[in-house]
């Protein structure tokens, strides 16, 4: 092993694992974070392999496990997987649309040791929520699921993805989260990768909306301190500096897709020249320390100017690699969202194009 490879090893261990148990989902949200090429049921990892991944993750230093999808409840072995995760010592979080859960399954999940439930809401009224999700009757079902969660004394997070079409009712979403007894609300502005990229003009918030949302969140945090914890992902297209995506590439987390492929982030496959290892072929720790994809953007040697000599390189790590790929067609470029990027004008072009209301129908995920 060469010295340079050793020095590329991260100083940090991963603290979270996102397990995309399946890409199957009854919903069809037009900003789904799954890749455009969804993996088929028959390619999914077995129960035993997933549980082995959980044990390996715990041994490697992972603390939080996020059971996600698609819709994780589409896996009939979700309860067994939860038990396996709990036995591995992981703090186990279920990220769900709620569809596919029943009171009986919720009992079994609580019994298996589930620690936390994160429930997505696409809007505050059925007309909006069900249209965005592409699923009639969805909101009503979700509200029942929220009650089942709190009745079992499990902590509830409401996860609200926000965009041009529902930002105006952000205040009502905050009130709804409190009414449902959520301890935490995650307000995430749509990130424009994959499906969301295909629906960008319908979803891109205006600058006004982005400003208003930040003010609303700030006020609600003050008002609801000790009642509701609010985590907020602002619209990066309207920011001056890019977000430190994933807290830096290959520094804090891992994502395992339904087939066992290990990704530094859920969108990483959009960087087509990277080669991703699979848990079927290689131990998770080897993939984290020595995997080609994980080492591709660690450290600072891969950076171009202006990142390479930038005083912010340890704060935002050059921004999002997938966004650099999508917008600059170069995965090592400065994220064009950064005001110091030579391609920053692209962002102004995109956001001003989005000022014209686009009512064309969504490209729904998987339909």
């Amino acid at each position, binding site marked *: 092993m060469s010295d340079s490879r050793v020095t590329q090893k991260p100083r940090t*261990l991963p*603290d979270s694992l996102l397990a995309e148990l399946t890409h199957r989902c009854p919903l069809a949200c037009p900003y789904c974070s799954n890749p455009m090429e969804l993996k088929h049921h028959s390619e999914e990892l077995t129960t035993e392999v997933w549980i082995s991944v959980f044990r390996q993750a715990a*041994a*490697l*230093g992972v*603390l*939080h496990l996020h059971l996600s999808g698609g819709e994780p409840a589409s896996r009939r072995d979700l309860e067994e997987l939860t038990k396996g995760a709990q036995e591995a*010592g992981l*703090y186990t*979080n279920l990220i769900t649309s709620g569809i596919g859960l029943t009171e009986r399954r919720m009992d079994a999940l609580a019994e298996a040791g589930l*620690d*936390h439930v*994160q429930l997505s809401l696409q809007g505050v009224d059925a007309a909006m929520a069900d249209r965005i999700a592409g699923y009639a009757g969805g909101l009503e079902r979700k509200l029942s699921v929220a009650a089942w969660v709190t009745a079992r*004394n*499990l*902590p509830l*997070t409401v996860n609200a993805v926000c965009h041009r079409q529902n930002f105006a009712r952000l205040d009502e979403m905050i009130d709804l989260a409190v009414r449902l*007894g959520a*301890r*935490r609300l*995650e307000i995430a502005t749509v990130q424009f990768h994959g499906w969301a990229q295909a629906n960008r003009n319908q979803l891109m918030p205006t600058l006004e909306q982005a400003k208003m949302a930040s003010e609303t969140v700030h006020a609600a945090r*003050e*008002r*609801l*301190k*000790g*009642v*509701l*914890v609010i*985590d907020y992902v602002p619209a990066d297209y309207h920011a001056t500096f890019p977000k430190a995506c994933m807290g830096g590439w290959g520094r804090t987390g891992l994502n395992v897709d339904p087939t066992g492929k290990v990704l530094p982030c859920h969108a990483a496959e959009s960087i087509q020249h990277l080669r991703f290892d699979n848990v079927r072929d290689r131990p998770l720790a080897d993939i984290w320390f020595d995997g080609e994809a994980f080492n591709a953007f660690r450290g600072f040697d891969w950076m171009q100017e202006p990142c390479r000599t930038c005083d912010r390189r340890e704060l935002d790590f050059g921004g999002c690699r997938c966004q650099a790929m999508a917008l600059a067609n170069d995965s090592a470029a400065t994220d064009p969202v950064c005001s110091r990027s030579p391609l920053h004008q692209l962002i102004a072009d995109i956001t001003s194009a989005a000022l014209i209301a686009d009512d064309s129908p969504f490209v729904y995920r998987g339909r």
Partner: protein
Amino acid sequence: MSGGAIVEISDQAIVRLPSGVRLKKDEARDRFVLLAPERALIMDPIGMAILGEIDGVKTVGQMIDSLASAYAADPQMIGKDVKAFLLDLAGRRIVEISQ
């Protein structure tokens, strides 16, 4: 649920860890962490000592007395630290306080 933000903690208050919050030995990094939804708080020895007093029965005043005698320290000083620690965690819904 309380109607609004908690601003101070009385000596009679009772503290408990809510469901979904638990202490864990982080073997890989050789430290203790308090795990909560989407949060992992690294616990230093002071934090550990305070957490060790939380049993859902003892009042905050009793917790402070117990720590003051264990560490042979001024209860007033200890009390300030304990209350600041608990208030911070309560603001993030990581502990529950009933006044």
